[in-house]
């Protein structure tokens, strides 16, 4: 019997049938699929002993105490340290995702420079520094054509001091900060108080009434981890002992939802509300006008002003009911300590100066300034100058700390909008994460025609995309730096964000890049200037004997005097510790001007009291809507997001994606704007294509558009070309872009 074709086919058929009743195919399929999960191309988890590393998060300057779970030298996850007195265990999503920053898809590990239409190309470090050095030389030789500026995202830090050392060696330079809640509040303090402090904090932990006008307290305001911790502190109290939250804002945000009272004011009417509350406080004798007479240098003028803003008038301006205004004022006056907080969100930008003056005035009227539960003026951090003023035990000034270079006059920080246009020829962008967004137009108008921008950035994202040269900085956990007092915290603090892992080759800590840049420009920063700034600060703290030190390892506080050397203090701070200053001393009543300095105070407040919208340029007929950009801290700033947050945005319907225009259903119906359709959003500055979303949380006739997240970060674009809503918002007064006139027109894509 031979093997025929028939028999062969029978064999194959039999084998096929047999295969079906053996585990052969299924087992092999299963095994091969598992094999593909483990083949050489797949990243493998590392295994080993885990440990906990206590440190301070330095991503945003919020100073949250954290515990990092480590596997060897690899940070895996982050949680808050509940014993840390600044953050009370709070962190934010960026902090919790911070171990992922090291592997961000937009991370760069080699210097890059713009090369015409080719975009960014890698360059050798020497070449990158040479480009910067040549521009620096031009600035020195031709200062009239433009000079050097550093945009500093963390004023007061050792890096900030280093920028100051660098800039102070130039005949003309700018040490810049971006417009922010902090800069506007500082300006308000300077024109209101006779003795303005350099920084204030809000004693929320002890407040009984918190009136937030615009400030999104639980949505990333100031130090978000701290506010998360404060919320925990409040939640731990019996309901009767928790503070009463009043939040004034146009849209029904998360902050509005969690507040006890939401005052849904019309856009831009914050000043009116504050003046209206001031009217009630005085007219109903809710504050002691007699006691105010001495410190309030312009009380009579203020009374005259607020007489123009009785509750009925304010109700018409703000859209509130008269009783809401009166009730808020009464609670603010009677349920003390009470504190009024102004501010905008990370995408909306700060309130205007007039708004902050009016809000600050409420604190002064009820006596919250300088008192527990209110606004507390902070002393400067201990430094050589302050120690020099305090004699040592022998009665001699303490000036035995040596600076590396002859200290020149400290470079004053200047807000970006205050410098002349076209005055910057070399702009250096700080490496710290810009957690707030600012319109690109604010930068562009300050740059000279041949300006070069240098970004010290770990990522090719956000502002780095606009730079000409990007130097690959190390990310948090890869280098050690200080975290001075976070904004809004009611006591001075000082902490250190430790280096806990190795950085990729090719990257450098930002101070190293600054040393190279200085050298290229013939400037001298001195050896280890950055580390010395931190050590100087620590030495000053030790010598001052002020305050106490939270030791994260033991969870206990130690008196500062127990630290004999700066090195010992640094060791404690590098392990999650935190120096906390003495509590601010309650101020004797300091003189103040409720209307600010100058003859025009009352006039400016009166104009703004009628509503900032009335001051907007543009035609209310052609642009009948009010555009209100907004954004979350760290997301709006267009800096990199940890990869886990892409899930928060991609999969959550509670978060806005950029260029989605949220309008109330009422506005949609009235103006024939259909949910989900495309529209053209037009302002006097330009037009953008947006997607319409009907949202009950938005006030009628308002268009709410998110600033960020950066679509590059979400993987929506990969060429760095995308539009931001801030490209078409109008900046008024140099620092306010929260309101613009706008129109929406639905379009049908063919």
């Amino acid at each position: 019997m031979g093997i025929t074709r028939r028999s062969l086919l029978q064999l194959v058929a039999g084998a096929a049938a047999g295969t079906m009743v053996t585990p052969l195919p299924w087992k092999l399929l299963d095994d091969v699929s598992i094999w593909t999960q483990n083949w050489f191309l797949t990243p493998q988890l590392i295994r080993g002993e885990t440990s906990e590393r206590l440190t301070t998060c330095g991503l945003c300057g919020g100073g949250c105490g954290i515990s990092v779970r480590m596997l060897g030298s690899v940070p895996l996850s982050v949680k808050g340290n509940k014993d840390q007195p600044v953050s009370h265990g709070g962190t934010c999503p960026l902090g919790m995702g911070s171990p992922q920053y090291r592997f961000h898809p937009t991370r760069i590990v080699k210097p890059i420079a713009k090369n015409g239409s080719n975009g960014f190309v890698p360059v050798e470090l020497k070449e990158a520094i040479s480009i910067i050095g040549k521009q620096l030389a031009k600035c020195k030789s031709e200062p009239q054509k433009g000079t050097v500026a550093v945009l500093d995202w963390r004023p007061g830090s050792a890096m900030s001091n280093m920028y100051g050392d660098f800039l102070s060696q130039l005949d003309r330079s700018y040490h810049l900060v971006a417009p922010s809640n902090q800069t506007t509040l500082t300006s308000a303090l300077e024109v209101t108080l006779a003795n303005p402090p350099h920084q204030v904090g809000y004693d929320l932990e002890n407040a009984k009434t918190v009136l937030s006008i615009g400030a999104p307290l639980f949505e990333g305001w100031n130090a978000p981890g701290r506010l998360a911790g404060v919320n925990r502190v409040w939640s731990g109290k019996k309901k009767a002992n928790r503070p009463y939250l009043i939040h004034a804002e146009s849209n029904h945000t998360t902050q509005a939802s969690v507040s006890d009272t939401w005052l849904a004011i019309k856009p831009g009417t914050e000043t009116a509300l504050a003046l209206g509350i001031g009217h009630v406080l005085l007219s109903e004798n809710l504050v002691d006008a007699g006691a105010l007479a001495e410190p309030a240098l312009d009380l009579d003028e203020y009374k005259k002003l607020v007489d123009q803003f009785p509750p009925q008038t304010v109700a018409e301006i703000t859209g509130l009911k008269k009783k809401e205004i009166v009730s808020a004022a009464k609670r603010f006056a009677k349920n003390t300590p009470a504190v009024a907080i102004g501010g905008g969100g990370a995408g909306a930008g700060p309130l205007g100066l007039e708004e902050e003056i009016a809000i600050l005035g409420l604190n002064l009227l009820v006596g919250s300034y300088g008192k527990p539960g209110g606004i507390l003026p902070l002393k400067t951090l201990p430094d050589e100058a302050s120690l020099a003023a305090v004699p040592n035990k022998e009665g001699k000034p303490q000036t035995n700390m040596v600076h590396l270079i002859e200290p020149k006059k400290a470079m004053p920080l200047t807000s970006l909008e205050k410098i002349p246009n076209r005055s910057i020829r070399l702009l250096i962008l700080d490496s710290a994460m810009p957690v707030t967004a600012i319109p690109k137009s604010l930068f562009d108008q300050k740059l000279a025609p041949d300006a070069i921008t240098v970004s010290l950035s770990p990522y090719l994202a956000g502002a780095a995309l606009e730079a000409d040269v990007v130097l690959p900085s190390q990310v948090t956990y890869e280098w050690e730096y200080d975290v001075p007092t976070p904004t809004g915290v009611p006591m001075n603090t000082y902490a250190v964000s430790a280096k806990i892992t190795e950085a990729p080759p090719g990257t450098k800590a930002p101070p190293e890049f600054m040393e190279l840049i200085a050298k290229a420009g013939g400037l001298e920063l001195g050896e280890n200037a950055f580390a010395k700034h931190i050590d100087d600060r620590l030495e000053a703290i030790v010598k001052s004997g002020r305050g106490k030190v939270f030791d994260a390892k033991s969870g206990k506080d130690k008196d500062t005097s127990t630290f004999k050397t700066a090195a010992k203090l640094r060791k404690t701070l590098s392990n999650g510790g935190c120096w906390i200053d003495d509590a601010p001393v309650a101020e004797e009543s300091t003189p103040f001007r409720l209307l600010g300095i100058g003859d025009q105070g009352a006039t400016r407040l009166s104009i703004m009291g009628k509503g900032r919208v009335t001051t907007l340029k543009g035609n209310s007929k052609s642009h009948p809507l009010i555009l209100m950009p907004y954004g979350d801290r760290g997301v709006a700033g267009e800096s990199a997001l940890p990869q886990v947050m892409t899930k928060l945005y991609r999969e959550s319907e509670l978060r806005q994606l950029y260029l989605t225009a949220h309008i109330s259903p009422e506005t949609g119906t009235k103006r024939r704007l259909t949910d989900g359709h495309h529209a053209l959003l037009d302002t006097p500055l330009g037009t953008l294509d947006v997607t319409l979303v009907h949202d009950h949380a938005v006030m009628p006739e308002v268009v709410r558009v998110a600033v960020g997240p950066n679509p590059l970060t979400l993987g929506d674009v990969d060429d760095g070309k995308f539009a931001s809503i801030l490209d078409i918002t109008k900046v008024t007064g140099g620092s306010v872009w929260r309101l613009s006139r706008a129109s929406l027109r639905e379009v049908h894509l063919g």
Partner: protein
Amino acid sequence: MLLIGFGVVLYIGYVILPALLYEQESQPLQFNHAVHMGDEGGMSCDDCHAFRDDGTFVGIPKTASCADCHEEPLGDSAAEKTLIEKYIKPGKEIPWLVYSRQPDNTYFTHVSHVKSANIPCAHCHGPHGATDTLRPYERNVITGYSRDIWGSAITGIKTNSWDRMKMDDCANCHTEHGFEDSCMTCHK
């Protein structure tokens, strides 16, 4: 010929395949669970396979745990001699081959199963504690994982709860006990 083809493939599937698919490797030490847990040792599973204060599971203990008792020989077995000479004295970890190792994409928490659901160790790991030797580790040459995951029977059919540790074994048990699962329950 039909039957021949059928038979050949059956033979390959049930006899050749298991023989080729797994390679055997001996454990570095012949650990005697029975003597440790019996009258002589008087130990229980969690004396060595313990939970830390934070709820994480120690797994297979470190050499230091063995050294607590075996710094000096307690008996005259070859295994103990190897333990002391090769691992305790030089301070080296024993490279145990873990029968129950799951893929890296699988998240499993012992504490919720042992402490919260009160599942005895043997339910998943079998009467391991009664053995006086460790059976060879049978490594799947394609996946690298232990034969214990798929199960000793090439068909994957199990007669005891501890015969297999595949995803559907976990999922079935969850379903029996009324737990609704999502992907993220076990794959974070």
